[in-house]
């Protein structure tokens, strides 16, 4: 029992890191109103990063497959949803709350659907032949990333593409001297909802039990009579769809997107999964929140060091825990 409680304490300790970062930032920033704005921005960014990173982390945990082309799903999700929003411009511009929301929902659904299909294609055509061969896996998925980025360039062109936003997500809430962008609050809420759903699926369903067991010991799950490779396609598709949704939300957040956005975000996503530890969504959430908060605080305090600060954070955490904060046992 003591072993259990100490571990729980330790896990709680690690989970408190984002809070610690927020507190330190509060002292350094000084102005509470700026701090609140930055914290909300950091949490929103963190949840979007979580969506993009969770699939990558689970896919690695389950099959030891690392997809360097994962960023393609993010970019495609962004562009597909932006195109749907552009196509539904009438609904988006309409003076009806419901039509606005419908357009947004349709764009997200399109991104998710695209992610599912592209994920299925990617897994069966690109990844399947190179299971268990890390070198070729990295090379092939890099190749796929190049092709995907070029495809986006061919379809949407290289100029920044502007993304529509429903009117009800524009603007900010002003509470005292604190202003909170509505879209950020929305992105955060949506991200939390997805996390809770994922958490419940993983911890309350039989499929989730199989996934968690598979992350720990794939061979044993197979020896118990379950086809992990078939389960894996499902997880891969889900991960791709989440990345596409993350991309779609990111597109609305940035309002201007380029075909390189996926590759640029990929670095941050990698840092997230390395910090969090591969294979567990709790770890990924932790990493995502840390990186999101850190980026916004440092971006405010010392703008030029924003990306470097994440790198420093990663190095520090790796020195402390070489497998990340909360890796799935491997």
């Amino acid at each position: 029992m003591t072993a259990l409680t100490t571990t729980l304490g330790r896990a709680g300790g690690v989970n408190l890191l984002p809070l610690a970062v927020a507190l330190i930032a509060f002292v350094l920033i000084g102005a509470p109103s700026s701090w609140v704005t930055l914290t909300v921005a950091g949490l929103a960014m963190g949840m979007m990063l979580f969506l993009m990173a969770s699939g990558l982390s689970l896919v690695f945990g389950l099959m030891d497959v690392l997809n360097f082309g994962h960023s393609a799903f993010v970019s495609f999700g962004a562009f597909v949803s932006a195109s749907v929003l552009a196509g539904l411009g009438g609904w988006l511009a309409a003076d009806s709350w419901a039509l606005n929301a419908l357009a947004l929902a349709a764009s997200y659904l399109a991104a998710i659907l695209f992610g599912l299909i592209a994920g299925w294609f990617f897994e069966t055509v690109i990844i399947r032949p190179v299971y268990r061969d890390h070198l070729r896996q990295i090379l092939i998925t890099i190749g796929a990333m190049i092709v995907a980025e070029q495809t986006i360039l061919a379809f949407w062109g290289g100029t920044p593409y502007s993304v529509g936003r429903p009117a009800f997500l524009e603007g900010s809430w002003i509470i005292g001297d604190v202003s909170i962008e509505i879209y950020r609050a929305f992105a955060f809420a949506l991200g939390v909802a997805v996390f809770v759903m994922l958490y419940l699926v993983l911890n309350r369903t039989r499929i989730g039990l199989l996934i968690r067991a598979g992350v720990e010991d794939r061979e044993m799950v197979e020896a118990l009579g379950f086809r992990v490779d078939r389960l894996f396609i499902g997880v891969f598709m889900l991960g791709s769809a989440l990345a596409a949704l993350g991309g779609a939300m990111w597109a609305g957040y940035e309002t201007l997107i380029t075909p390189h956005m996926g590759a640029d975000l990929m670095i941050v996503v990698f840092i997230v999964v390395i910090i969090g530890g591969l294979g567990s969504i709790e770890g990924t959430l932790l990493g995502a929140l840390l990186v999101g908060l850190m980026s916004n605080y440092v971006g405010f305090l010392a703008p030029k060091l924003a990306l470097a600060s994440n790198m420093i954070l990663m190095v520090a955490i790796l020195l402390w825990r070489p497998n990340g904060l909360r890796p799935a046992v491997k």
Partner: protein
Amino acid sequence: MQNTGTLIVKTSVILIFALLLFAPFLFQDVRSLEVAARICIFIVLVASFDLLIGYTGIVSFAHTMFFGFGAYGAAILLKTMGPGWTPVILGALAGVGVSLVFAIAIGLLSLRVKAIFFAMITLAAASVVLVLASQLSQITGGEDGIIYKAPDLFKPATKLLTDADGKVVRLWGVRLNGKLAAYYFVFFCALALFLVMLRFVGSPFGTVLKAIRENEARAEAIGYRVVAYRTAVFCLSATIASLAGTVYAVWLKYTGPDTALSFAIMIDILLMVVIGGMGTMWGAVIGAVLMILAQYYLRDLMGAASEAMTGIPLLPELLAPDRWLFWLGIIFILLVYFFPKGIAGTAMAWGEKA
């Protein structure tokens, strides 16, 4: 051990070096000399990357970072100290020094964990350096990069040999001027670095690396300290990449994120080493030559093809010269599936069977 395939590969490589040696006389235009110099540099860069990926089976995305350290080292010093050999040498040393610090830090931090961690961490490190280089504009010139002068010997106005009238001597129609000296500086530096690597992979050290690549657990069991070996080869590879960067900086007289640090260069290196053939050294030469020729000349062809296809949906878009990476990506994927040994490796294996 020599067989037909190996013989063909080695003959091609020697032929390539011979062509590069006489390039200024064979192809007498400015663009060709640019291409030849670029080929020389990339042969070294790709071969040093092959030390990692082909000989030890580790994938690093930080290779351009080291290349950039060497280039920026020379560039910054040539800019601040003015043209001369001292800044070049000091720049080279500084580049190598910084590269070694980074290589050791990254190596010790991540080579002991999974190969995939290493790939991700090098990618993250390289992007941070890239972003820093474009942001710290007081030192690096930011996005615009740095323009500077090369040592006096390499000025186009420098006369290497003069005739009785004091005019520069022409040999087979080529002026023996500073531009020529600069090219041969690049060529011989590249040749020397390549020979060093060739010697290295043939040494007992190279044999150990192969043993580690074949079976890491076994090599460990036999008593090789895998992490130490990997860190050592990572350092060597970084040093050579950094030196190549310095040489390129001297040749270009310009250094910026696009020429020395960008992720596009990393992708190029990766494509070259895989297309040429990993783990052979010869493959690096073949891959670099083919890719750079394609970069310079295939685009023209694609432009013509794209115009011929106007009216057909999407095809002109995909055949546009800017989309050449699309096709390269597909070729790359197919190669990794069907010919993972690349051109050189496949030719050599084919020769063994025949």
